[in-house]
């Protein structure tokens, strides 16, 4: 069964964001990694790239399919999780511990449009 983590905000396309001050760590949920199956490649943006809420910022490739990563917020990429370049399977091992990008938020009010863990659990049941 998929795990859900409290205190994060979730998008309909199964990305999460963990907010710390003016920064947010963005990754895919445990539910998403389950659905994708074994991840074999993560396509990530570069530091200083701009991301926009609702738009793609990369892709996750699994043995089943390639899926776009949709940014839950707008902002600037300040760090990417380079470990995923060689070990994309980290997303399968622990999706919440292994975030994909760290973003400096440009509009924190966008967080209000995202789901809390309870709403996200419901979303996954649908």
């Amino acid at each position, binding site marked *: 069964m998929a795990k859900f983590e409290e205190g994060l905000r979730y998008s309909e396309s199964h990305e999460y964001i963990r907010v710390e001050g003016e920064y947010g760590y963005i990754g895919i949920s445990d539910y998403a990694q389950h*659905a994708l*199956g*074994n991840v*074999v*490649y993560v396509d990530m943006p570069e530091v200083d790239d701009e991301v926009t809420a609702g738009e793609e910022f990369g892709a996750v*490739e699994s*043995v*089943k*399919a390639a*899926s776009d990563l949709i940014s839950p917020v707008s902002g600037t990429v300040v760090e990417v999780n380079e470990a995923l370049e060689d070990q*994309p*399977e980290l997303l399968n091992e622990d999706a919440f511990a292994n975030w994909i990008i760290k973003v400096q938020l440009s509009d924190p009010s966008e967080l209000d449009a995202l789901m809390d863990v309870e709403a996200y659990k419901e979303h996954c049941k649908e």
Partner: protein
Amino acid sequence: MNRTLYGNLIFELSKKGRKGYSLPQDYDRTHTTAELPEALRRKEAARLPECDELTVVRHYTNLSHNNFGVNDGFYPLGSCTMKYNPVINEEIAGMKAFAGLHPLQPAVTCQGALEVYYNLQESLAELAGLSEFTLNPCAGAHGELTGLMVIRAYHESQGDIRTKVLIPDSAHGTNPASAAVCGLEVVEVKSLADGTVDVDHLRQLLSEMGSEVAAMMMTNPNTLGIFEPRVLEITEMVHKAGGLMYYDGANLNALLGECRPGDMGFDVMHINLHKTFSTPHGGGGPGSGPVGVRKGLEQFLPTPRVKKVVVNYDLPEDGPTEWEGFIVDWGTASDINNSNKPLGSVGNFFGNFGVMLKAYTYILSLGSENIKHVGPLATLNANYIKERLRDSYLLPISGLCKHEVVFDGLVDKSSGVTTMDVAKRLLDYGYHAPTIYFPLLFHESLMIEPTENESKETIDAFIDVMHKIAKEAKTDPELVKTAPHNTPIGRVDDVLAAKNPITTYWKSKE
């Protein structure tokens, strides 16, 4: 056959100095390279395998036994229409009178071949409800790209710059890829819960960006095998915004003989001859992706196209005589500078003529009466499977499907057996696996397309095996999770293959 011995790579069977040939004693080895400039000559010998003839023959015979095609058994690969390739197709395409032709020989010397070419152009136009076809493109996605180039050329001829292509989120992956290759921007149209196009979302997109929309690409029935009930409304909306409608012909088999893309309001389409018209597919290719257009767009089609002409002679002895024949319109350099004829040719010479001969043979073998049964029988077979399997496999969209049916894995997923496991276990029972994990709308998609060819006995036997696997998933899940067990190679490591592909045959020790 001894698989341990002959199942190795041909390079692993190699023994230094072993040969299956001998050259004349006085053979002059300098002769073959004498004409080549020094820079182009090999510095060391090519690392070719060295084997005796018998080993080579056994090796390849062994490989051929490991193959699985429509001739070996049921091949229900969804979205691919793996229908039977009748033997007469091969016989006709292999005739010396056709196979020995040169694409550049004068038209007067190959009138029969040109007549077949012309008749196929006309037959496809009639079956599709469109005006004219080009047979030039060599595969389905090549046809998509050609069709989009036709659409772009049309808009440019109107002085209209349109850069966006609307594509439903359930579309074949080739649609957005073709649009991107054509330099157009893809905008996704959402699907409703029943898998059909969300017309309200389409309306919203058209009101936001209608004047920028070059076309909308659709396949109908869609990739879930569901007929789009509001297709007429959709084509009308897009036309009103000034865009054209593109029909992805991958799923045409469901409609063949029953209804026509042209009548639904589509302007441009491609047909996969290697699906709907029974020509070889996959490893047996090559493909062919003819592109058709409605009236008013013919001048944008690529060349060559074969045309029928009638010439009147007034002969001294016979008086007025009518001669009917076929000519090739190759286009000219000035056509390419003319905004009405911008494409030129998109493929080699006439395209894959051998494939066209097979497709035309198929059309003539069935005739206009029997071809009407293709779509309905393909639909009947898919619905029969759908109704008989829905107890064991989760049917996310009930109601009538067309030529293929999509399940979302097992109904009972408690043992952890996935769609992948079911597909692998099918191999043990001598079936080709269905398409899996496509369409992407469901997590455990299992997409079955039986085609119209299969007998009730074949389909029933397949259904029994599918139920048996569903039972095994409960009683002995490990058996299914570790399948296949009866194939030359067991469960392959997909992750390792994707992450660490070995693309050369040389072992690292060399």
